[in-house]
């Protein structure tokens, strides 16, 4: 189980900003989201989307715990 957060245009595509998803790894999480919403899954897999687990950016795979927070970050606008 992990808390998933979407930002910027990703939340517009999904129609939600925050939800809990059952997944033990990041790739499991992506697969679960793909089954729910293929358009979102495609948007999340773009090279310009960064992933943060527990507020730290990472590349590649990650193991998720019950309290993990996974954020998908589209290109940042700056302030």
């Amino acid at each position, binding site marked *: 189980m992990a808390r998933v957060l979407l*930002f910027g*245009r990703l939340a*517009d595509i999904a129609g939600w900003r925050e939800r809990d998803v059952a997944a033990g790894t990041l790739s499991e999480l992506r697969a679960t989201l793909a089954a729910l919403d293929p358009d979102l899954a495609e948007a999340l897999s773009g090279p310009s989307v960064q992933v943060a687990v527990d*507020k730290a950016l990472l590349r590649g795979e990650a193991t998720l715990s019950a309290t993990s927070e996974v954020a998908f*970050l*589209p290109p*940042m*606008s*700056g*302030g």
Partner: protein
Amino acid sequence: MSVTLQAEPFDPGALLTAFAAGRAETGAIASFTGLARAEQGTTTTLELEAYPGFTDAAIAEMVAAAVGRFGLQDALVVHRIGPIAPGEAIVFVATAAAHRRAAFEACDHLMDWLKSRAPFWKKEVGPGGARWIEPTQQDRTDAARWDGDPK
């Protein structure tokens, strides 16, 4: 050193008054206030989204780096989030140093970084609908001036 993200409007002058108070050894305070432009009515509202705990941490890290790089005595960043009306302040940055070159350069540098690389997502909402904004080429060029070895 202080970094604040807030949904409420703020008065840049009140922030400057507080920042400037009681400084016997500060010779120079540079400040920058970014305001939301009306763009002749084409933009009615700006909406800024942040990732609490991530956005503020990234800004605080950048401010700490600027304090070291430019030898600042102090620095302050206040950034609005949520909907912002034209004419309202979006961001206020103040830097304090013994001499003015450090204060100016650090303030300029922090703004370039905030405008181009800070983790915000920005939407312009106007009569024609809403669109997400990305940094302009000018923003990227400005930010790149500071890359590489510090002077």
